[in-house]
């Protein structure tokens, strides 16, 4: 089954749309007319906000593909609790895309806003543009972030990438903002370019910063260096964070030219 959603021009395009109902499961189980989204504080039919084109049939969520056209940067929570299937987003997407996702694939051709893949446990998210803050993190105040799955960002990520990450993998092909991998417990983060203050208070897991790691915290201990043949770089190895009681984290950071 293929569902093509094109966002209609709206009078007030800044009013956020809460669209946790845009998942393969709801299109499989419900009639399109019964699916609703919230526009601001009003519940509206999906067909009032989007042009919906549906074609083909599906027996399971795996066979469902959802395509979102147009600028969806005010559409939040797309693919929340997604278990299987595919969502392709042609333009930008709003906050909380792929929350609690446990399987399937979300492909974003534009930029994604903050909280991409929050608390996901499986599946894959590929974002071909930039992403905002708290990509692959946990809820505010919660101790565990993502537990599994894979997030790939082709450009840059914002601050607090993979906060309290407890599994899975995050790859950023550009730079990340402040404090990627803070409170990290498990899993792997790879940042191909630069990062600022990486992995504060990390307890476990591995983080690679292949460009320049600006301001490595004094609570990290350098244990040596290694030539990484995969990335063809000389990397310093740090252990930490010694500010935490458990400090089994490993940080591999590109050598910086100190002035």
């Amino acid at each position, binding site marked *: 089954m293929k569902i093509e959603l094109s966002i209609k021009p709206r009078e007030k395009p800044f009013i956020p749309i809460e669209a946790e109902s845009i998942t393969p499961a709801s299109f499989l189980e419900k009639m399109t007319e019964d699916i609703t989204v919230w526009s601001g504080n009003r519940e509206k039919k999906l067909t009032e906000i989007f042009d919906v084109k549906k074609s083909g049939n599906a027996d399971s969520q795996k066979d469902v593909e959802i395509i979102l056209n147009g600028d969806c940067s005010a559409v939040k929570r797309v693919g929340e609790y997604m278990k299987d299937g595919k969502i392709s987003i042609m333009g930008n997407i709003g906050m909380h895309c792929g929350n609690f996702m446990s399987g399937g694939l979300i492909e974003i051709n534009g930029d994604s806003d903050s909280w991409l893949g929050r608390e996901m446990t499986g599946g894959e998210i590929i974002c071909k543009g930039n992403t905002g803050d708290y990509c692959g993190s946990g809820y505010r*105040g919660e101790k565990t972030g993502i537990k599994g799955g894979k997030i790939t960002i082709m450009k840059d990520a914002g601050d607090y990438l993979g906060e309290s990450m407890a599994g899975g993998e995050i790859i950023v092909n550009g730079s990340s903002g402040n404090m990627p991998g803070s409170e990290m417990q498990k899993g792997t983060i790879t940042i191909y370019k630069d990062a600022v203050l990486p992995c504060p208070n990390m307890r476990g897991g591995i983080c690679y910063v292949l460009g320049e790691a600006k301001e490595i915290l004094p609570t990290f201990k350098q244990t040596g260096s290694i030539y990484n043949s995969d990335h063809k770089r000389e990397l310093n190895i740090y252990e930490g964070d010694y500010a935490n009681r458990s400090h089994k984290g490993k940080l591999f950071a590109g050598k910086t030219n100190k002035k």
Partner: protein
Amino acid sequence: MSELLIKNAYVIDPINDIKGEIMDIAIKDRMIADSVSDSAEVIDAKGCLTLPGGVDSHTHICGTKVNFGRYMSPEDMRAGRGRAQPHMYPVSGYSVPTVYANTYRYSALGYTTVLEGAMAPLEARHTHEEFFCTSLQDTMANTLFDGNWSVMEAVSDKDLKRVAAVVGWTLAAVKGFAVKVTNPGGTEMWGWGKDVGCIHQKIDHFGITPAEIIEYLIRANELLNLPHSVHLHCNNLGKPGNYKCTLETMQRTPNLNDKRQTLYMTHVQFHSYGGTKWGDFCSKADDIAWMLNRKPQIAIDMGQVMFGKTTTMTADGPMEFNLYRLYNNKWSNHDVELETGSGIIPVFYSRKNLVNSVMWSIGLELALMTKNPWQCMLATDNPNGAPFVKYPEIIALLMSSRYRDEEFAKIHPDTGKRVHLPSLDREMDFYEIAVMTRAAQAKALGITDIGKGHLGEGAYGDVAIYPIKNNDIDPSRDYSKIIEGFSLTDYTIKSGRVISRHGNCLLNGNNRTIWVKPKISEEYNMSNDPEFVKKFERYYSVSMENYPVEEEYMNKRNICIETETGL
């Protein structure tokens, strides 16, 4: 004028010695009356259990400490979400929920009066602002005096009248209700990174001991003739072997008041630990209960722990630091100038944890081993032991030994060697539960005279009707029905108006704040005392003129209890 008649109610009203009679209750103009006219609104209770509105004598629901708990635990707001309804605001939160969530949930349990357990005098305004929005309960605030410099200096000078004058001035200034002492001396020592070992250790810079602070405050409390006694959170909370300290505190308590207890000890579960370290940690509830049974001048509350997630918050800063080292999670620590301090951390009490399992047993043991239910009240020190929504489960545990045995089978297997709970087969009846949840609490707080906690003529029309029929139910077997029944009242009536029906709150409850104002002669008025005034100029961040809580901050319907003092 409004009139209400509750028919066919199975009433238990311990203060008026009614132990289960089918009768009618008439309420006229907010007060219980002898009779009402025929035009009165009628509620048919259908023989259901009808009790005076519940009174919680120790809970933390309003104030800076609670609010900081909300601040540091945004994840707590993911639970307990409820939408707005007519007369109800949207709510969220579980252990530190929003103000409205607290008031709605208390009213669903049948509670109409609550006492905020600890209000730092300097931060009283915040507490009163939240009281204003606790719209379905009448409120009171315990005021902290554990590390008050002026009090400690007066104790050091052995000047009882000055202690009383400081306490009286502060209570009236901040519109507090009673004297709360949290880890006396310990919070002051915590300012220097230390704690006090037991009640005979000297406090740095003041040269006095916690025992002296407690003794002087007890005597000052009686001198001021306050409705409630001193409300004490003992030293050494949560440390293995602290029962000796608790016993000695109890042993030293004089009997000075024949109307009520002389000392109210709160969350005694946390103070009844034997052993020397966590490895040989065990229950000493038997020793504490033995002492309590011999000391009618003491009343306690259980401080029951229930399994699950919660937030601990207390003015006992050093204790919270120890807990933080145990859990290694978030921690907040706070200092309140010349008065006190506080600490907050989120915790999880687990069935699989031996220490938590023993703690759970100790609370129940205390209640079951105390012979006189008027001396041991039901409370969890909300939210420290558990959020108050767990009260119905505690009631069921006290009423059914079968439920206790079933729960006991689910906790850590080594608990049996360290506690006495399996050997206790006492099962409480509805009368004892009514005592432990409202009558004893009202009596201990000294608010029966103003018409709280009973259904006598002239009392406030606070009534809770639970969907429990005495004849149809065997609490020992049908404990799940007890939990269900006490969780949600059919009607909660406050001041003669139905505020909650099956958990749906119907209106604003015209809540009042009760505070005390001791009448003190000009000679002992601290506003004129040069040394006291100098303290404000020199150390406080606010001036003396701005310190008292103005009437604007108070609920307009407040009740002021003026007391005749010996000053």
